[in-house]
Structure formats: structure tokens, C-alpha cells
């Protein structure tokens, strides 16, 4: 159960880097940028079709990190704080349907050959696209980014129970949207659930 995009641990060095950013240390900021750019890009790419737009949003997120580093109070992990900024950007992206089209479907650059066919990948993304933005975020943050429910609560700035409730509804909705996937992958079929 590895987390592809979610190397979540907030190390002391990340806090130190952020503290250095408060002091306008550009080397520290560059290190944070290099650390988070791949994770943020992967996460935000889930919601926006245009790679150039995704790069812009990543820069927007990291610019907020630069300008608002002093607002980090240390109550959550640095990664939760940064992904919280990205979460709000992603929500905006999801709600701006005109500009942000359906993400990662036929334009998937790479697919893990070990897990499922391209058709399955397209199917799962069609199912995810059918979820509400809040419900989809919980799925993506859990399974793509690998965050715990406490971290997701910090990212989405909501109670832990809200995260669990959103996940519950997202799962129920996905069962409706993705019966084929669930049926193929489970031994006993979803009808018994």
C-alpha cells in the first residue's frame, strides 16, 4: 500500500525551510519548491487538462507559500498546509468548467502496466469526474496523495467527521458510477455489500 504521490511526512527540515522562507531565504524556498513541485503537479494535474495551466497553478500555490509563510502556525504538517493551498486552487479549477476541462483521460502520459488497462483508467476517471468537487477531493487526497483523514481535515479546513462523511458518500456514489470496475476487481461482487 504505497502512496505514489503522498510522501506525507513533515520533517523538521521542512519546518526549518519554511521558517527560512519567512526570513526571505530564497535558497530555502527553492528547496521547498523542488520538493513540492512534483507532488503538487501530480495532484493538480488530476483536475486540469492543460499542463501549462497546471504549471501556472503550481507556481500560484508556491507563490502563496512564499508570501504567506509567516501564516503557518505549525498546527499541521507543512505538507498539509501547502496542500491546503493547492486544495483551494483545485476546487476553483473543478468549479471553473469552462477553463478546466476533464482532466487525465486520453491524455494520460503514463500508465502503470501492473494495474489495470487503459480502459479501466478511463473508467475510473470518468467515475471520479462524476463526483462533486468535495467528494472527489477526498478520494484524490486519500488515494493519489496518500493523506490520512486528519491531514485531509487540515487541508480542507473541516472537521474529521466531515472527511469521513464525504468519503462515505463518495464511495457510495462510485459504486453506482463504477459497477464494472468494482465487479471485476472484487471476488464476490458488489451486490453483496
Amino acid at each position, binding site marked *: 500500500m504505497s*502512496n505514489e504521490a503522498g510522501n506525507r511526512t513533515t520533517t523538521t527540515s521542512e519546518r526549518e525551510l519554511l521558517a527560512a522562507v519567512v526570513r526571505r531565504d530564497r535558497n530555502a524556498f527553492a528547496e521547498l519548491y523542488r520538493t513540492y*513541485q512534483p507532488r503538487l503537479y501530480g495532484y493538480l494535474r488530476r483536475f486540469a487538462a492543460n499542463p501549462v495551466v497546471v504549471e501556472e497553478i503550481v507556481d500560484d500555490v508556491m507563490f502563496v507559500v512564499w508570501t504567506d509563510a509567516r501564516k503557518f502556525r505549525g498546527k499541521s504538517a507543512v505538507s498539509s498546509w501547502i496542500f491546503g493551498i493547492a486544495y483551494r486552487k483545485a476546487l476553483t479549477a473543478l468549479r471553473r468548467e469552462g477553463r478546466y476541462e476533464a482532466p487525465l483521460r486520453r491524455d494520460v502520459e503514463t500508465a502503470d502496466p501492473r494495474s489495470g488497462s487503459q480502459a479501466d483508467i478511463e473508467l475510473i476517471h470518468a467515475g471520479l469526474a462524476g463526483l462533486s468537487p468535495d467528494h472527489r477531493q477526498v478520494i484524490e487526497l486519500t488515494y493519489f496523495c496518500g493523506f490520512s483523514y486528519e491531514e485531509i481535515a487540515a487541508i480542507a479546513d473541516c472537521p474529521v467527521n466531515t472527511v469521513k462523511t464525504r468519503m462515505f458518500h463518495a464511495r457510495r456514489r462510485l459504486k453506482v458510477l463504477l459497477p464494472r470496475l468494482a465487479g471485476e476487481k472484487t471476488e464476490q461482487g458488489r451486490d453483496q455489500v
Partner: protein
Amino acid sequence: MTRYDVRSHEESIELLPWLVNNTLRGDEREAVEAHAKSCIVCRRELAELEALRESVQAASATVPAPDMRHINARIDTQLDRESRGRYLLEGLRDFFSSPWRAAFAAQSLALVAVAAMLMQSGTGEPQFRTLTTTESLPEGHYLRVVFDPSLEQATIDGLLADAGLAVAAGPSERGVLTLRFAEAADDADRSAVAATLRSDPRVLFLQPVATGD
């Protein structure tokens, strides 16, 4: 029983997504796993969630190499704006660090305030004085006259003496003299004097004024 006590199937099943992504705390994980071992519904749900996790993770975009040119440009702009603001503040602080400059600034501020008050009081009740205004003059006949400003006072005095006129008021800010006729002058005399002065190129303006009639 583990320290984290899963009291119900509902509590267990709602934590399954995070059992799958391996982020439950140790005691939570043990409790949920223990429940799932004996719960066929949870085991089925686990299998579905594992399939979901694999599918979500299966597609991953190629991540471009970090390129900080744009964000560095934004940061440069922001820092430049900040430093300009700081420079202005420091300049003001330096300026006011001298007591003389501070006093000068305070005095200037006071002058501006007084000027503003005067302007405001001036606009409260407009007062106009035209060339024919006669409220402050005794009863009689007068001329409002403006001489060429290049004339010397002695020349003006000579002209007035020749015409039998005396200064009753002025000159005003605009150089208007109010001239009084000799007491003996009648209407014909006054008309003749006025006509003579009007014809003199050194008289720029002339206006007869009468009070008390």
C-alpha cells in the same frame, strides 16, 4: 482488545479507506484489521477500495522538471515593491529623526490647517465688492479709476489736482482708486472731468459712482 476500541461495524468501515492507504495510527489500524478479519462485509469493502486505490494511482502524469523562472520573476517583482516601500518608510523615519525637521513639518502642517480653515470660513458667506459698491462711502459723487500701473505717484497726484479730485479710498488690490469730486462741482463739471480722464490714455478704467441719491 486493542487500545483503540472499534465499537461498531460502522466505525470500522468508515476507516477502511485509510487502512488501504496505510495512514491509520497503529492502534486504529490494529482495531480495524481485527474487525475486518471477522467481518465479510468489511473484507469485501477492502477489496473494492484496494481496486479503487490501484485505479486512481494507475494514471500518473509525467511531471516536468522544476522551472523556477516564472516564480522567481514574480518574487523579484514583489521584493522590489517591498524594498521601495521600505525605502520610503526609512526616508520618512530619517527625515523625522531630526527635531528641526519635525518642527518644520509640524509648522507646515499647522499652516496648511490654518489656510484650510480660512478658505472654509471664506466660503461660508460669500462677500463681493464691485467697482460700484458704495456702502462705506459718505454721500456724494465719486469716480472709480484705474491708472496705468507704470505711472509714478507724483504724476497721479498731479492729474488728480488738475481735475479737482481727491482720493476717497484705495487703491484696492486691483489698483482701483475711489476719487471724490470737489464739493462745488456740479453735474456739468463732473461730466467734463470724467470725459477728460477717459480720453487720457494713462487712465485704463473709469466709472462714475453716486451715493445717497
